């Protein structure tokens, strides 16, 4: 059997392994903000519901937790695929560095456990737990989300800034300092950057749904609260992210000069380096096209030195130890997209706050709502772009300066088959998630309409959801 299939399967696995890892991570990273931040957003609604006896907030919290059940399930299984892929696609990397790289994941495992347990208690506890104890079962979800993010990103940061291990002459890890592995130099800022990103993407994504609802004329209190809570979380996270991102960029300038050269697309070491917007490198490695802002890259890299700041160019690193020209193009474009969209979202947050300061209410114009509705997808694009910067910018290394991606990959030549299978399954999965969430939303909206008719028209008092629950069929009969 092996020989019969041999010729079909004999395909270089490295590009396919890369593609599969990139694709599955790109998919999973969209679910991360929902897992990390949505719990927090839901608890705010839940808190408000109990404190102020707010039926709209309660309904939102309950529905959000139900949506979360779906997105968390998909996040859990797509995360499991990543665990498998570490070994399936990169066995030589894991075999050699698992001793060190694995440690942050052991801690992440704890948080994942906590999250899965308390998410289940929280989601299923609405009906029969008392309000406050139920609220508190949600708190570990938030803590676990934060802890999990920090641990996973610590592992990724370790690939950028490997530390805490000693290799013997055969290249085997012989001594490990777990503390230095976890708290490697890139870890604090990178973890914070991703954590804040998760909150702002989660906030913008959830808010965008309600912005759409308002644009479609559903400008009731329910939709307004559904917009205000997540959007406020995102709008608070946004300025923090501008500061963290700025600090992070300067950190990369000081510690990962190759990545920085790719980010700023700097072919030759020099001072007074312009900030080039867009553009690309030609065959000879020269910058073509784009808009150059004189001296800005140098100024931003070290404001104290200004235009005299020297930035190392790509040519100061051996060709086989830096990203290829086309990879540099990708990194630079992703950087422009991240910074551009990030700034745009920052301005949107300022608009929102300005309206609160000067008018004591959120902006009501259609333009604002349209932009807010788009902000969900835009923030996801920003997140993906940022991730591309850090991953592609590290090429050709999987563990910077220790192991190259091509030396880490599996020898299995059938990876192209699993890649295609994964691609098809995930595309189907993405479509299905969206359809299922929409169907849930439509069903509830129709339920709301019916409830209002039952209560004698849309202006009558709304029944509290608990009363719904009390009147309802027993869940045993309800479950399909």
């Amino acid at each position, binding site marked *: 059997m092996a020989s019969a299939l041999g010729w079909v399967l004999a395909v270089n696995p490295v590009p396919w392994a890369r593609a599969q890892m990139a694709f599955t991570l790109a998919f999973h990273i969209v679910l991360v903000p929902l897992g990390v931040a949505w719990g927090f957003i839901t608890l705010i609604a839940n808190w408000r519901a109990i404190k102020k006896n707010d039926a709209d907030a309660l309904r939102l919290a309950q529905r959000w937790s139900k949506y979360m059940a779906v997105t968390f399930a998909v996040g859990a299984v797509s995360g499991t695929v990543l665990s498998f892929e570490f070994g399936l696609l990169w066995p030589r990397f894991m075999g050699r560095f698992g001793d060190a790289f694995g440690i942050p994941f052991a801690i992440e495992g704890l948080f994942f456990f906590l999250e899965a347990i308390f998410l289940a208690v929280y989601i299923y506890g609405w009906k029969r737990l008392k309000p406050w104890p139920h609220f508190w079962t949600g708190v570990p979800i938030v803590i676990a989300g934060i802890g999990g993010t920090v641990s996973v990103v610590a592992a990724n940061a370790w690939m950028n800034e490997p530390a805490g291990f000693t290799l013997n002459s055969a290249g085997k890890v012989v001594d*490990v300092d777990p503390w230095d592995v976890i708290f490697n130099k890139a870890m604090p800022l990178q973890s914070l950057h991703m954590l804040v990103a998760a909150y702002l993407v989660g906030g913008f994504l959830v808010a965008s749904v309600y912005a759409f609802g308002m644009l479609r004329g559903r400008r009731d209190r329910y939709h307004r609260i559904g917009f205000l809570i997540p959007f406020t979380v995102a709008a608070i996270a946004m300025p923090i992210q501008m500061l963290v991102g700025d600090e992070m960029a300067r950190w990369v300038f000081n510690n990962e000069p190759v990545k920085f050269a790719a980010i700023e697309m700097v072919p030759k070491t020099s001072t007074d380096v312009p900030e080039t917007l867009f553009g690309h490198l030609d065959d000879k490695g020269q910058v073509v096209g784009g808009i150059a802002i004189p001296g800005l890259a140098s100024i931003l890299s070290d404001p104290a030195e200004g235009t005299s700041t020297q930035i190392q160019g790509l040519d100061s690193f051996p060709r086989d130890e830096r990203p290829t020209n086309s990879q540099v193009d990708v990194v630079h474009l992703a950087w422009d997209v991240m910074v551009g969209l990030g700034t745009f979202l920052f301005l949107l947050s300022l608009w929102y706050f300005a309206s609160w300061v000067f008018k004591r209410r959120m902006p009501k114009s259609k333009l604002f709502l349209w932009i807010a509705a788009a902000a969900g997808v835009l923030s996801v694009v920003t997140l993906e772009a940022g991730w591309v910067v850090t991953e592609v910018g590290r090429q050709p290394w999987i563990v910077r300066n220790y192991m190259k991606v091509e030396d880490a990959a599996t020898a299995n030549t059938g990876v192209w088959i699993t890649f295609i299978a994964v691609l098809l399954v995930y595309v189907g999965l993405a479509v299905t998630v969206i359809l299922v969430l929409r169907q849930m939303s439509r069903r509830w909206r129709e339920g709301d309409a019916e409830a209002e008719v039952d209560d004698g028209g849309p202006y009558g008092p709304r029944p509290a*959801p608990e009363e719904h629950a009390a009147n309802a069929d027993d869940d045993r009969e309800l479950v399909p």
Partner: protein
Amino acid sequence: MSDVVALILMVGITAYALFGGADFGAGFWDLTAGGAERGRTPRSVITHSIGPVWEANHVWLIFCLVVLWTAFSEAFASIMLTLFVPLSIAALGIVFRGSAFAFRKEVTRTSSQRNFGAAFATSSVIVPFCMGAVAGAIASGRVPAGGKAGDPWSSWINPTSILGGVLAVTVCAYLAAVYMVWDARRLGDADMVEYFRRRAVVSAVVAGIVALAGIFVLHGDATYVFHGLTSRALPLVILSALCGIGSMVLLLRSGHRGARLLAMGAVATVVLGWGVAQYPYILPTSMKLSAAAAPDATLWSVVIVFVIAAFVILPSLGLLYYLDQRDLLAAPAVEPGLDGEREARA
């Protein structure tokens, strides 16, 4: 030190078998529950039974993977390199299982429920089969150490792997049926108690036969593990048989709480027996635990994480199971009743 971490790994694998395994087994009964009408009631028991707990149970798999790749990274790499095919299938099966189950709960149209249900149930059989086949491949020494891949096909399509796969599927089904006897009882559904009790007895018999047949398979195909099972792991094997028979007797006498514990004991001792039988190898007979083990500081980190888990995660899991068994975790009540109305109108 490596032995301590190996024990932690075995605890993880056993927990995954006992809890995650039962969730897969529930999928097996879902698959065999018949058409949409006939299978409606058993499927509702299944959904009710595993709904709140399957994700937490699933984390045991992540736990095992993480311990394996952190503490025994070379063995992890070898396993993943050789068993690329069954593990890729298992990973995709896990995606289908989890997401389809979550989707099925939330859709109302019968055709959608049927499609998601089919995906959930089929993958619930495929995944444990692949996991069992992987265990069989390791046990029969078909995963070589040292960065060389074993045969991509015969490493997991062989007598021991097929035994492992079939045993895993039947054991999962057995556990699930036993657990669901109690879940049905909690729901006060006498018909379903009887329904799952019958299935528990049948699957116990089948699992017993497979296990007996396994002795002959291992004798010819996995010599090292066979000798281990008939010497140092023999007490565990005997204990497993006693637990299995005991639980069946209790099930036949229409049930006692002890049947569930004994069933768990029967399965746990099989898993532990496998571990003891292949000791001191992690990959019989090419790599010993001590040779694959990470540096001490890494092993200590794993132990510390495990101790923290024992103090934080186990009580949390206990809380989850307690609330679940006390029926305090109901399906989330957002607009309940609506689904029923919709069905009625349709």
